């Protein structure tokens, strides 16, 4: 299972990348977040359990129990502040 990751705003800056391609170890959004946290450093810090971030799969916001389809576009970003 592959995913195309996108990062926006503060998270894009902290992670030092706007996107990357990942081979997924698990099946849900929670598994994916755990996989990124396991990188340690800024990833563990920004995606820690107490931090607020949003996950969108194929451009729809999902909860962490969402199952990821193959080749999903998965975005992780801070709460939105437009308007």
């Amino acid at each position, binding site marked *: 299972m592959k995913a195309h990751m*996108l990062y*926006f*705003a*503060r998270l*894009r800056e902290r992670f030092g990348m706007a996107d990357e391609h990942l081979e997924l170890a698990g099946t849900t959004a929670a598994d994916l977040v755990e996989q990124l946290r396991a990188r340690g450093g800024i990833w563990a810090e920004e995606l820690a359990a107490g931090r*607020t971030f949003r996950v*969108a799969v194929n*451009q*729809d*916001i999902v909860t962490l129990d969402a199952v990821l389809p193959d080749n999903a576009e998965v*975005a992780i*970003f*801070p*709460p*939105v*502040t*437009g*308007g």
Partner: protein
Amino acid sequence: MVQTEAFDLGAEVDAMRQGRTDIGAIASFVGLARDMNEGSGVQAMTLEHYPGMTEKALAALVDEANTRWALLDVTVIHRVGRLLPGDPIVLVAVASSHRGEAFAACEFIMDALKTRAPFWKKEETPKGERWVDARSSDDTAAARWDK
């Protein structure tokens, strides 16, 4: 719907009403960049968005407004890129037969946009750049519309 250029409220509203005589009410809203936020001066801001999802999210908001109220036309324009204090950021205009529906739908779209459309603001202040934090007041405003 998403653009870097300025928009023209008068032209957008005129385009809505041109050639039709069934509209009784047009409620509109313009959000502008302020020189002050959370106690410190803002010299400029940059709006980032998630291309693709933004358009999808805005279209979903408009669809939801059309389901909830009897609307004749809706326009939503959100700017991205670098903006200066005083610059217009967002425009929502809603046409309906009656004013109650136009007002409600216009305010609903703005409230929902603030929490559901993927835009992020970064401000330039005398102390440096900072990403704007989401406001709990925006969550509260958006939650008013939940049934």
